[in-house]
């Protein structure tokens, strides 16, 4: 279980690291051109946005788990569950809230 969480954490981190420069660049474009914003309405782009948000939630959850294990004197298995739950909740909540 912990291995799975760790792998998701790593892969989502890589995805986010690759995404960030694009995000910063796109931000410049989006705010100059409404046509760019219109492009983001496309379903494939929406899917990408949703995937990035889920990656963010997963990475945050996995990261909170690492911080908990490294800094808090709790029982190991509890920490794992807590953060995984947090990540999933966050992901689901955001995905729904964004109603993509």
């Amino acid at each position: 279980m912990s291995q799975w969480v760790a792998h998701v954490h790593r892969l989502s981190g890589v995805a986010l690291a690759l995404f960030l420069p694009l995000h910063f660049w796109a931000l410049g474009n989006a705010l100059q051109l409404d046509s760019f914003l219109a492009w983001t309405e496309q379903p494939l782009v929406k899917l990408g946005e949703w995937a990035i948000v889920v990656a963010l939630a997963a990475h945050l959850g996995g990261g909170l788990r690492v911080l908990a294990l490294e800094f808090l004197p709790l029982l190991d298995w509890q920490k794992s569950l807590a953060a995984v739950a947090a990540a999933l909740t966050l992901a689901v909540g955001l995905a729904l809230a964004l109603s993509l």
Partner: protein
Amino acid sequence: MRVLVKRSSAVQEFEVPRHPSQTVLDVVTYIQRKLDPTLAYRYACRVGMCGSCAMTVNGVPRWTCRTHVDNVAGNDELQIGPLKNLPLIRDLVTDMSEFFDKWARAQGRFQGGRTKHDDFEKVSPDSPDRKAADAGIECIGCAVCYSACNVVAANPDYLGPAALNRAWTLVKDARSVDAIDKLRAVAGDAGCHACHTHMDCTERCPKHISPTAAIAGLKRATAKAALKGEL
């Protein structure tokens, strides 16, 4: 049942009779004594005290003397191999030298400051430091955790969970005079900072030690020492 043994050259298949309360060590011993005397493997106490019989059973490192066949032989089949992450000598026997070399590199040995002329160090068993040390001192160096660890597989320099766990118990030992040297030895790319808390070590340790917790302690201790300029 069907037993697939990963030997030096190839995987060899054996047919082994099943018995109640049979352990995987019983199976390996049966193979070597009755079917193929050329099979090389290690064991000693066969009662779960020495750790010599550690092997990979169905992909997972375990003490074979403490693994009941009934718990692992799904579909009446078993897969047995040598411990991972260690060089192979032959068949099921691995070279443990690097495991113990890393133990030494992590300064996994006690250094005290008192002589027989001094009074005893008074260590309360209830003190947080002693409790932290006690949580890790039962390690018998069986290398199951080392074999389970992904980072050991990916990073050949990584000292590994057992060595780091031992270093932690000594850092937490009130009688140690060289705690800071130990922290220096375990900080770095090959040390505690390479651990990514996959927790395979904690999950597989037959003594229920948590090297993850020990390594987390080392991370905190090295950070504190670095901030104080002591590292």
